């Protein structure tokens, strides 16, 4: 087959010599081609696994959650009481958990955005190169601290501090969780915002400076607005990380399933609920299925945040 196509083709393909001129090399070339194809197919398979995993994640979450729809029905999730373990009547209303996640995420974002954006602007526009090269790895280091270690730090150091400063009965509050989560979101926000800021063409800044604007005016009126889509994407990716964060939040928010807007109350997030209760449920029970529903909601929330963020980032071709 190979030889036939070779002979009928007007000229040999790149990288292959006409086989009839070099009969002894023919076998080698042939084997090499087969080997090349085999390797290519294997690599293709490796590249496909990420698609496969995503499909498997969605289908297994749905598979485990679906029977809940028949009994007790989807409407059972839409309630404001989460009492899955009760002798009287089990209820699986997820509103308090969604409210807990929303409150903690909103607070953490409010805290993290000014710090993250200021940090990014400083690193990319103000800091000297040597200063930037020292500070950036240090901030990246923060992203590497395991969440359970941060949670432990929150429990032992931050919670007592919050309790004392705000004069509360307990330091395990939504605010404590939000402070820790802000700390986790900051490296994400800084590193992506900084990339976006650096991607702003130099000519914009030069034009602004040439028109007599000061460096500060150029930063806030030219560079930051031009990089805004990237900064928004950075914030969204940071939020995605915050919503999905489990251990730190579980350790410091006190885990009371109540609906509140007060940062000084204890709250229970969706992630913490799954982590804390999955160990005690019997597999296949309503409670078990309800926890998978929470997983689906979390997955959809982070998935859509991610998707929108990628749209913004495409502006800079920061993602291929």
């Amino acid at each position, binding site marked *: 087959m190979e030889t036939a196509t070779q002979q009928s083709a007007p000229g040999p393909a790149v990288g292959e010599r006409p086989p009839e001129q070099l009969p002894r090399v023919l076998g080698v070339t042939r084997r090499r081609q087969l080997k090349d194809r085999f390797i290519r197919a294997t690599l293709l398979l490796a590249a496909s696994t990420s698609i496969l995993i*995503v499909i*498997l994640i969605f289908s297994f979450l749905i598979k485990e959650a679906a029977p809940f729809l028949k009994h007790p029905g989807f409407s059972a999730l839409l309630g404001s009481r989460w009492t899955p373990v009760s002798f009287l009547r089990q209820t699986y209303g997820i509103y308090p958990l969604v409210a807990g996640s929303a409150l903690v995420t909103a607070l953490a974002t409010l805290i993290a955005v000014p710090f993250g954006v200021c940090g990014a602007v400083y690193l990319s526009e103000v800091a000297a190169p040597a200063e930037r090269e020292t500070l950036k790895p240090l901030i990246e*280091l923060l992203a590497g601290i395991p969440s359970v270690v941060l949670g432990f730090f929150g429990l032992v150091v931050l919670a007592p501090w919050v309790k004392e400063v705000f004069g509360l009965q307990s330091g395990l509050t939504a605010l404590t969780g939000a402070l820790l989560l802000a700390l986790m979101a*900051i490296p994400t926000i800084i590193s992506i915002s900084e990339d976006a800021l650096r991607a702003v063409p130099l000519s914009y800044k030069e034009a602004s400076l040439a028109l007599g604007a000061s460096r500060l005016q150029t930063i806030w009126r030219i560079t930051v607005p031009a990089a805004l889509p990237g900064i928004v994407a950075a914030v969204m990716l940071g939020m995605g990380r915050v919503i999905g964060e489990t*251990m730190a939040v579980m350790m410091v928010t006190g885990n009371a399933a109540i609906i509140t807007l007060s940062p000084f109350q204890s709250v229970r997030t969706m992630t913490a609920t799954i982590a804390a209760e999955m160990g005690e449920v019997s597999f296949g029970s309503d409670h078990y299925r309800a926890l998978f529903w929470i997983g689906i909601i979390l997955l959809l929330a*982070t998935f859509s945040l991610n998707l929108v963020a990628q749209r913004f980032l495409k502006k800079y071709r920061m993602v291929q």
Partner: protein
Amino acid sequence: MNKRATEAAAYHLMRGVTYFIVLVIAYVIFDIIRNGLPAINWQFLSESPRRSGAEGGIFPAIVGTFCLVLGAIAVALPLGMGGAIYLSEYATQGRFVRAVRLAIVTLAGVPSIVFGLFGLGLFVLFLGFGTSILAGSLTLACMILPTIIVASEEALRAVPQSLREGSLALGASQWQTISRNVLPYAIPGMLTGSILGIGRAAGETAPILLTVAAFFLPRLPRSIFDQVMALPYHLYILATQLPDTEKVRPMQYGTALVLLVLVLGMNLGAILLRIHFRKKYRW
């Protein structure tokens, strides 16, 4: 003059904010080191825990974490590197590549606890691995795959096109070109990038909570179907589940320090290696 003063004040403010962040990070690390160091001795590192971890050491948890990480690497590294080679060297833009990229981005954003649910549903229950090292390693492998692919692809793209063209022009096949003229220069970058993902796997708690971790199991695993203790989960137990948490504080700090050193050590190593290789290969 007034304008210049505002300008200087604004810069100082931004500098202050940035250094404040760094200071907080430094304080977290310093606090763990200061309180953790006294707890660490040979006994702590080499003995099994006693009384649910309130006494004794953390040796089984260290071994457990190493098992999980090695398992995750064994699965995710070849898959991730292979996928990256395909994406950067073979694939042409099209529907497939777009689908793979979407999948990578999606995977990177999936919350760790959702990975735990997925591992529980697929590996533990459906495939019948039970709560075991195997199920946990596979779950962690899925989690770190996107990091490895993205890092590897970046490293491959950094190799100049002329190296490939030169090799192809001399008659080498595509795989010969990749294996002899591209990979040798890309592998250091691929590995250092991957270490960052691996460090993340070592520190994650939520996925292993549902797929492997044993609350208290003071012995070493015998097979990949065994449960194990793991450092992050052990720290969580020590910090929240024991009755007299104040008394166990040195144990908690000690465990936190070991975990921190393990993870940050890997990350630091990766960053230093990256700097080293960037200096070595300047195109």
